[in-house]
């Protein structure tokens, strides 16, 4: 099961995504207890893939706050600001529930980490192919992305290119996902639900 969660800043998308990951995780555990699968070896783990690049004190504080918020919720945190598919090497075998937060950080890191901005198509293709690796390697996969498309502002070209990258990545993720949810004022609105 793959879920794409999208929303504006402060919309409650992270909280919703955590709950979704949690519900899959519990579902899994119940299934495993009542009817153990013979092909299931190893552990059942819930992972949080954090994409924020820590560049300064402000960033460090933000990451610490997020870590505290997740404390006690049973997530194993993996910091992976770029090359997101590498996170899979740091997961144990067995059932994996993964929460990836978020595409806006990942896209910015992939696009702007070098001296020059990486070309749009290259960034989109890299992110999508790496996320496909994660999708294949996980049992349940929740991806969080942002709605940054509706303010009508004409930013300078680099920013417009970044917004287009986000748009293209979101469209591809939505096509891959079994479920797409937009969170508005904490309320989940179903955009796509695959039977």
């Amino acid at each position: 099961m793959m879920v794409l969660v999208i929303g504006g800043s402060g919309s409650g998308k992270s909280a919703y995504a955590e709950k979704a990951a949690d519900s899959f995780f519990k579902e899994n555990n119940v299934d495993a207890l009542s009817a153990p699968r013979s092909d299931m070896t190893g552990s059942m783990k819930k992972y949080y893939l954090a994409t924020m690049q820590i560049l300064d004190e402000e960033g460090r504080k933000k990451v610490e706050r997020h870590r505290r918020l997740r404390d006690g919720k049973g997530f194993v945190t993996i910091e992976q600001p770029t090359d997101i598919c590498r996170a899979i090497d740091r997961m144990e075998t067995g059932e994996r529930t993964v929460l990836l937060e978020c595409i806006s950080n990942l896209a910015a890191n992939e696009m702007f980490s070098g001296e020059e901005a990486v070309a749009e198509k290259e960034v989109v293709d890299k992110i999508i192919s790496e996320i496909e690796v994660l999708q294949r390697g996980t049992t349940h996969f929740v991806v969080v992305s942002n709605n940054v498309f509706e303010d009508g502002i004409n930013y300078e070209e680099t920013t417009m290119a970044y917004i287009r990258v986000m748009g293209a990545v979101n469209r591809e993720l939505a096509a891959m996902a079994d479920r797409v949810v937009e969170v508005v004022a904490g309320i989940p609105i179903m955009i796509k639900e695959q039977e």
Partner: protein
Amino acid sequence: MRLVIGGYAQGKLDYVLEKYHLRENMVWDGHLPADEAGQAGTVVINHLHHWVKRRILEGGCPEEEILSFAGKFSDCIMISDEIGNGIVPVDPAEREYRERMGRILIRLADMAEGVERVICGIGQTIK
């Protein structure tokens, strides 16, 4: 007339072309065809918000013009960005554009047989 709205880079045009089996040569980009002559089949107006912004700058009356256009071309799909979900701009001209654009979309949505909102390439029928 149908109205399709959504944020920047959400795949609105691709969505329209695929869903309504239309070709790109039926698409008017930021312009309205002047008359019905030579307009066979569905007319698609893409980037309607660009046209509105230009008409405001030119001192035109996009409100009246677009309603009269929609009256003439009933077999028409209008595609516009949603531009109002951000901070209200400091620049008065940008504020006026958002306000008038929003009011135009309301009137078009009211007239339209159907309104769809596209997010992540997926359309939701909202009317």
